[in-house]
């Protein structure tokens, strides 16, 4: 990108449309709209087509080219009104803004690098052995390796809440490599399969022409694909120790497959899917903690679910999603909202699984008002307090549910017995 001053000079000197458009596009880009150079050319063509007769037309022409999501509209609106009233004003603003927009990123990078560097250096130190160490200490390596193994076994069973900082860090590393196979469901797309249940007419005819005369029937079978996965995680005070680990888990899952949507909620709901997309777990988590304002605060499960149902359910639950609801069910506002919203959520997804850290206590009974409201509307009920329980999730998700509320009714039966 050229220096901002340079573009400004040309714009003020010649005042040409092209320059103005380029500069406007750059403003929008700096404001965060994804605009490539190709769009500027399009914008130019569009403006030439419509003409510059009316300010309103110019607005909607540029809007049609530069905006392609509804939520970009307010940004565009502001930029347009500031820019086309007085480009010079904007230049000055840009000159002031641009460096400061650029800088934090660089600083972040540097910070990131230095942290990485620090970690890399630390790896050379004594506790680095599990990750593999220099060759000269072969005996010790072996010893360390076995220790790591038993260590890991031990780690599997420790409650996240009781882990030391170092244990927690190691648990997070294990989570990072965790994979979560979700069951696959048939889609309406097909692939050739000699033992398929449907006849593939196109392939049959093609084959018979090759062979001369009608030959054997070719068959096809429905392609299978995992349904979308939606994770709703409670980050209120009572969950804080778990939710920090679970967010790592969410990051691992989000990066492992497509169609995963991640939300966190305390007093309000935040969609963190895009933030978690970043490959590097540290960067992703930094972004999340920057964005989410209600860590370790109160809980308003019912209210947050209502927001989810109203704003997101139609967008992310569309194609038969599986929902993981991670919460201890301790609700601050106990009223009818929670039950009603839970019911709606249950009825709009394929499967709703409640992961509850409190379930680690054998004597746990869903007696709190929140839990009572949630219980009638879930399909499965699982603990989530240590690595084993996270790994066990695999077993639940890998096969399709036999019927609704399967897991819950089993759990209830065991309770009674």
């Amino acid at each position, binding site marked *: 990108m050229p220096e901002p001053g340079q573009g400004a000079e040309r714009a003020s000197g010649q005042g040409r449309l092209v320059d103005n458009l380029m500069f406007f596009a750059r403003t929008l880009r700096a404001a965060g709209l*994804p605009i490539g150079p190709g*769009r500027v050319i399009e914008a130019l*063509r*569009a403006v030439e*087509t*419509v*003409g510059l007769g009316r300010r*309103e*037309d110019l*607005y*909607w*022409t540029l*809007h*049609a*080219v530069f*905006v*392609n*999501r*509804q939520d970009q*509209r307010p940004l565009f609106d502001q930029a347009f009104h500031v820019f086309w009233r007085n480009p010079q004003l904007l230049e000055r603003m840009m000159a002031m803004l641009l460096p400061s927009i650029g800088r934090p990123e660089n600083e972040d990078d540097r910070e990131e690098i230095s942290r990485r560097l620090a970690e890399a250096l630390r790896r050379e130190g004594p506790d680095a052995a599990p990750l593999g160490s220099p060759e000269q200490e072969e005996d010790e390596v072996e010893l360390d390796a076995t220790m790591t193994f038993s260590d890991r076994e031990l780690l599997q069973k420790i409650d996240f809440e009781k882990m030391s900082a170092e244990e927690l860090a190691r648990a997070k590393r294990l989570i990072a490599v965790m994979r979560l196979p979700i069951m696959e469901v048939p*889609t*309406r*797309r*097909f692939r050739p399969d000699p033992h398929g249940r449907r006849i593939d*007419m*196109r392939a049959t*005819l093609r084959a*018979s*022409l090759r062979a*001369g*005369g*009608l030959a054997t029937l070719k068959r096809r079978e429905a392609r299978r694909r995992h349904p979308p996965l939606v994770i709703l995680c409670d980050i209120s005070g009572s969950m804080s120790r778990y939710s920090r680990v679970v967010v790592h888990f969410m990051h691992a899952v989000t990066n492992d497959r497509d169609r995963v949507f991640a939300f966190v909620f305390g007093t309000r709901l935040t969609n963190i899917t895009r933030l978690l997309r970043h490959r590097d777990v540290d960067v992703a988590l930094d972004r999340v903690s920057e964005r989410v304002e209600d860590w370790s605060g109160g809980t308003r499960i019912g209210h947050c679910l209502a927001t989810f*149902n*109203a704003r997101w359910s*139609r*967008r*992310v639950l*569309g*194609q038969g999603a599986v929902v993981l609801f991670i919460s201890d069910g301790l609700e601050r506002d106990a009223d009818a909202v929670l039950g*009603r919203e839970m019911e*709606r959520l249950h009825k709009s997804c394929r499967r709703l699984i409640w992961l509850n850290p409190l379930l680690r206590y054998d004597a746990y009974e869903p007696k709190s008002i929140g839990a009572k409201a949630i219980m009638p509307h879930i399909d499965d009920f699982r603990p989530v307090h240590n690595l084993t329980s996270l790994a066990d999730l695999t077993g639940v998700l890998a096969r399709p549910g036999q019927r609704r509320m399967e897991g819950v009714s089993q759990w209830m039966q065991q309770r009674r017995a």
Partner: protein
Amino acid sequence: MTRLIPKSVDETLDLLTGGRYVADRSLATALYLGLRLGRPLFLEGEAGVGKTEIAKVLAETLGRRLLRLQCYEGLDVASAVYEWNYPRQMVEIRLAEAAGDRSRESLGSDIYSERFLIKRPLLQALEADPAGAPVLLIDELDRTDEPFEAFLLEVLSDFQITIPELGTLRAAVPPIVVITSNRTREIHDALKRRCFYYWVDYPDAARELEILAVKVPEARTELSRQVVGFVQKLRKVELFKLPGIAETIDWTQALIELNQVALDPKAVDDTLGVLLKYQDDIAKIRGSEAAMLLDQVKSELAAAGRHA
């Protein structure tokens, strides 16, 4: 009757008005750009705000053929683009075998000729038409899955389709493409980038009144004003599904059928199902809430009347 593509935003607006579609100038601008520069128009918005209607009106006023591709999950090439007519192909093969007069190669090229091709909307849209390029409506694109979206991307950028047995078919004149989405899923940026984007919003009261006057001319002014006032109020309430313009029109027609000359709480309660489509929403509004909204509407209208 074929009309030429409008030459300015004003003409586009006139065209839509001529088709009894009341549009904002902003929409006319986006549409004009799409028509002029031969690019798809991407319309996004809540259900019932008149997205599909735009394509219909366009086809009607321009005198073009309307081809509609309704999207659904798992929509594939066989139902969107083309399919071979297998039963006829098999009969042809049997006949050729019985006659024994044709070589395998010539039979092969006969079987895969246009006679046996069933054309679906996307392929039809590429065909030359004496009335001019057709209007291709790709409705509710958000309902399909990503693979189809990727395929569409290819078609929309070059307006050509390859059929392995026949070769590549290319549109002499690109069709007028209108894509709609209810945003139940975010459409990929790559596809949107090839289109002119427009978000169809709920209209304001004055615009909605205009629409009602065009669509339900038999409604009395008083009733229309009250209906629009009520619906506008309703859109400010937190509901799961807000009523669109389609619902406003339906509701007005329903009230006329019931011989209502003005709104009263009982009539609202009885016909609320026309306006709201979720039981939770109906339960929330029915009764006191509806009566309260209605009172507000009536007093506001009375106040406006005194000023006038």
